[in-house]
């Protein structure tokens, strides 16, 4: 953890603070609390300049996931430093501006600053990370914060649309970029950018080199709104204007530029890299400048102008990569000038475009509109704003003496140089490069003029404005004025930047061009004689002014290019087709019918398990002599089990179906006896009795079984699935019982049951001691089920889904005057209850235990209810069984917690032998206490269920 790490973390921490301190911050504008963050960061990064200028990049590491080779390694060199300064510097001005732009009484300003800080931290992370995966994480975080900020006024449809669009496009690019990173990792075995750069010699010839390049460029182009991915940026203008100024012109959209610059040492020198970036950049520059002149919304105009300028920077980076063709030496220096221009223009653009966005924000804020057709003549009303707009627009148009002029001249030098290129097949088409660049610059001049003069000069139309405009408050003016001053200062003294920032950045982008120990020397001059460049600028001014005069009257200049086909429409249609297609595919299998889902499950079961058995060839049909012998009676029992089951699908009455199922259940009880499982037999017998009774209670109120009219095809399908499941299960049973691949853990339980747990009934010991935690959770599940039943029956959810209500809402227990039943049950109940207690208390050593005892007691109570009616039961035993369940759970839980108090793990049990009066030597175990909890829970659950369902008339 270093100061650099803290710098990246600081915005996140403050964002958290803003969220937590919502109340105290609501009295002041939260922006005042946030403002120190970017200011301090800016000061910190300014302080780093001398070190970086001295040629010592800073490099710090904090381990994160060392086993995967992912560390949070931060790397501060000339390139990152420029971006860090832009992020914190423009960030400070934007926060200050937003304090006056966002009304704290009307807007959710705290949320706004949380998102803004989130972005600031993420963006710093992007430009400072050395590890590609960390970079990717921050990259996506910038997309997310951008999404949140665009949708800040989320009640507007357009905001949500724009947010989603930007998210889809940039995240698509981000994923492509991630794939590119992984391809790079596959080639080099490292995620560290510096290490990848170091191993560049070994990977250039690899077949994966080109795919990696294209994938990474996809990420860069989507983020930096290059054609044809630019369509998200104009829609992103729905964000509050400070956000547009910050994210969507100065910083986030330059992340793609950063990525291209950062990877230049890896990919530059490859002709594909040169052509893809140059052509994409120039196309974007040309197309977007043409679109910009047709906009009537000021922010839309600025959006297209941003796209266009991003294209310009991108193309410069492409042109600059030609330098890498030569390697270190004098030839490369000429081409490297393009890179210098790119870095310089990157900063210039942030400055003048930031100022222009703030101006547009002021105009919007003061007049209530951004529509050029309504604006005009604001010059006298807002003189300061006008001055800033003029400086910004002239700088953008490339007029002296502003900073934009210098970088525009350097741009022309670069494109003229590119037309002279005689390698990478540039001979034929190279001449087009300056032509396109010049034409686009004419349009740039044109829209810059439109922006400033259509707004501030011309006819003032107060009747079209919502508000009476006047100059903005001072706080809103300071940030654009600062930026406009910078535009002049850097225009007059460009070398302030060139020594301190541009030279180290050049070193970062073109390390291969330098001899060891050497540095770049960048000198930017305002005047260098009557060169071609200056004539190009004069031409732009002349033609541009002419076009400005014609702009209103010539349709080509102010009408849309085509009406029918636009990229936006393609995007909208594509999205709709995806949604519709996805829905229709999903609806073919998500039918809403539970039966279909059950069929999928069983079909998968058959395929997975049956297929698995086939694959490992573990199918046996007996033959091995180790099977247990079968006696005649057992064979009869099996037949007696199978017959009711097989008959079940054919019966037509409910009663018969229930009785047949019950018969199967009792036969299973018999098998438990045969297979030496006395506990199971007891449990199954009681459960079967109680559930058959439950069925009989309920069934009367279910409709009669109808003869199902199932089409033959479906019938066969059902049969096939059922038969398949049956066959697979049979095969599994055989495969499992033929041989064991490992020893059973049974021996452990058999050996340890008495010495460790003091019980001789191993099954019971497993339940209450060895696996006590399972049992605890199990009785909880039972308790939940019983409460669910209670709620379903007793709590009316209010809403009646269908009007007609069954007059017999409740299920009634028959309470006939059955004398024999009553007389017999009076005696039997006591015997059963006593027996159940015996079962419970003997459970640790003999068959029985909490489950069985509880069920037996419940069965006795059910018998009581059957014979005498619910009311009698309720009078005789005036307890609420839900409370009994709760008590049981509590006892079981407390037994477990008790062992914690004694310093042993949860649910440890102790036992000992005590010499008690009357009973003599008695064994007492805490497990019995736990079992008591189980007992009570089971009684409570069963009785809650029966009581809920059955009710007296």
């Amino acid at each position, binding site marked *: 953890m270093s100061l650099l790490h803290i710098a990246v973390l600081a915005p996140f921490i403050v964002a958290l603070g803003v969220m937590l301190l919502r109340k105290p911050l609501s009295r002041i504008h939260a922006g005042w609390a946030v403002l120190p963050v970017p200011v301090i960061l800016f000061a910190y990064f300014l302080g780093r300049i001398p070190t970086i200028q001295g040629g010592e990049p800073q490099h710090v590491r904090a381990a994160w996931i060392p086993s995967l080779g992912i560390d949070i390694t931060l790397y501060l060199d000339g390139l990152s430093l420029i971006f860090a300064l832009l992020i914190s510097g423009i960030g400070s001005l934007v926060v200050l501006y937003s304090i006056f732009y966002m009304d704290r009484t009307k807007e959710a300003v705290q949320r706004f600053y949380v998102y803004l800080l989130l972005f600031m931290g993420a963006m710093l992370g992007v430009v400072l990370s050395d590890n590609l995966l960390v970079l990717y994480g921050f990259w996506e975080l910038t997309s997310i914060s951008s999404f949140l900020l665009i949708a800040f006024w989320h009640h507007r449809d357009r905001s949500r649309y724009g947010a989603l669009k930007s998210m889809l496009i940039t995240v698509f690019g981000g994923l492509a970029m991630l794939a590119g990173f992984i391809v790079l990792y596959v080639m080099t075995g490292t995620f560290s950018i510096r290490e990848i750069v170091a191993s560049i010699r070994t990977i250039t010839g690899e077949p994966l080199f080109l795919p990696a390049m294209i994938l990474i460029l996809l990420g860069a182009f989507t983020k930096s709104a290059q054609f044809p991915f630019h369509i998200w940026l104009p829609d992103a203008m729905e964000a509050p204007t400070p956000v547009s100024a910050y994210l969507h012109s100065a910083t986030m959209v330059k992340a793609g530029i950063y990525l291209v610059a950062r990877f230049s040492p890896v990919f530059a020198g490859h002709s594909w890299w040169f052509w893809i970036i140059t052509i994409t950049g120039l196309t974007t520059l040309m197309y977007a400048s043409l679109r910009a002149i047709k906009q009537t919304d000021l922010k839309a105009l600025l959006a297209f102008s941003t796209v266009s300028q991003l294209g310009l920077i991108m193309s410069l980076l492409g042109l600059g990569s030609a330098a890498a063709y030569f390697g270190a030496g004098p030839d490369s220096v000429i081409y490297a000038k393009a890179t210098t221009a790119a870095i310089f223009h990157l900063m210039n653009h942030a400055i003048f475009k930031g100022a222009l966005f703030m101006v547009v924000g002021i105009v919007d804020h003061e007049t209530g509109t951004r529509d050029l057709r309504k604006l005009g003549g604001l010059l006298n009303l807002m003189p300061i704003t006008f001055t800033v707009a003029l400086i910004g627009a002239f700088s953008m148009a490339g007029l002296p003496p502003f900073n934009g002029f210098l970088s525009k001249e350097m741009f022309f030098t670069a494109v003229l140089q590119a037309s002279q290129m005689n390698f990478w097949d540039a001979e034929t088409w190279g001449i087009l490069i300056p032509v396109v660049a010049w034409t686009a610059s004419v349009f740039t001049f044109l829209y810059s003029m439109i922006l400033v003069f259509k707004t501030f000069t011309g006819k003032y139309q107060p009747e079209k404005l919502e508000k009476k405009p006047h100059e903005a408050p001072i706080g809103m003016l300071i940030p654009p004025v600062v930026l406009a001053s910078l535009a002049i200062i850097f225009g007059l003294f460009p070398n302030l930047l060139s020594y301190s920032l541009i030279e180290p950045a050049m070193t970062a982008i073109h390390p291969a061009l330098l001899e060891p120990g050497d540095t770049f020397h960048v000198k930017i001059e305002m005047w260098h004689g009557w060169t071609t460049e200056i004539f190009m600028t004069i031409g732009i001014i002349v033609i541009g002014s002419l076009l400005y005069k014609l702009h209103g009257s010539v349709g080509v200049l102010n009408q849309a290019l085509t009406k029918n086909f636009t990229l936006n429409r393609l995007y909208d249609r594509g999205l709709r087709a995806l949604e519709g297609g996805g829905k229709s595919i999903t609806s073919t299998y998500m039918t809403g019918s539970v039966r279909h889902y059950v069929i999928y499950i069983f079909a998968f079961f058959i395929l997975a398990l049956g297929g698995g058995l086939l694959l490992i060839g573990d199918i046996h049909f007996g033959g091995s002599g180790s099977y*247990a012998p079968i006696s005649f009676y057992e064979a009869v029992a099996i037949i007696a089990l199978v017959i009711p089951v097989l008959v079940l699908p054919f019966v037509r009455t409910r009663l018969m179906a229930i009785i047949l199922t019950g018969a199967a259940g009792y036969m299973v009880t018999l098998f438990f006896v045969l297979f030496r499982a006395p506990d199971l037999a007891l449990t199954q017998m009681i459960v079967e009795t109680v559930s058959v009774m439950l069925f009989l209670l309920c069934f009367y109120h279910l409709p009669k079984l109808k003869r199902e009219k199932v089409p033959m095809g479906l019938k066969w399908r059902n049969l096939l699935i059922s038969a398949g499941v049956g066959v697979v299960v049979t095969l599994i049973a055989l495969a499992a019982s033929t041989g064991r691949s490992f020893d059973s853990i049974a021996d452990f339980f058999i050996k340890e049951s008495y010495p460790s747990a003091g019980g001789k009934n191993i099954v019971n010991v497993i*339940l209450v001691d060895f696996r006590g935690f399972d049992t605890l959770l199990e009785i909880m599940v039972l308790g939940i089920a019983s409460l669910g039943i209670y709620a*379903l029956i007793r709590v009316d959810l209010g809403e009646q889904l269908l009007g007609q209500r069954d007059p017999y809402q409740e299920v009634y227990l028959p309470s006939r005057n059955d004398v024999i039943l009553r007389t017999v049950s009076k005696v039997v109940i006591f015997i059963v209850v006593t027996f159940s207690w015996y079962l419970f208390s003997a459970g640790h050593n003999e068959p029985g235990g909490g489950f069985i005892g509880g069920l037996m007691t419940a069965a006795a109570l059910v018998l009581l209810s059957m014979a005498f009616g619910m009311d009698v039961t309720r009078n005789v035993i005036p307890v609420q069984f839900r409370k009994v369940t709760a008590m049981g759970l509590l006892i079981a839980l407390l037994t477990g917690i008790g062992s914690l108090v004694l310093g042993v793990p949860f649910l440890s049990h102790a036992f000992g032998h005590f010499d008690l009066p009357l009973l003599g030597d008695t064994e007492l175990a805490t497990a019995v206490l736990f079992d008591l909890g189980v007992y009570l829970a089971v009684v409570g659950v069963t009785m809650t269920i029966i009581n809920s369902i059955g009710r007296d008339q």
Partner: protein
Amino acid sequence: MELYMSLAIGILFAVGVYQILSKSLLRIILGTNLLTHGVHLLLLTMSRLKTGAAPLLGEEASSYVDPVPQALILTSIVISFGVTSFFFVLAYKAYQRLGTDNMEELRGKDDE
């Protein structure tokens, strides 16, 4: 014995599944009941049958049958009792409210 038990288990499963695939809620519940029985017997059969005395140390036998599946089944019996009851009440309540026990008519709505 294992061979015949396996066949019986297969039949329990097959009929259980067939019942679950039918339209009537009552049949579906009974089907799950059969599946439960099938699973219990399957667990027992998998651990080999009749390999010793019941797992009670009081028997003082030289070998015992595997107690682990028995413990599993015991909890399963009780749980499935709870689940079946719940299922039953759900079916009853659904019928009372919606007037049908036909699974085809109990489909979810499209907009969900």
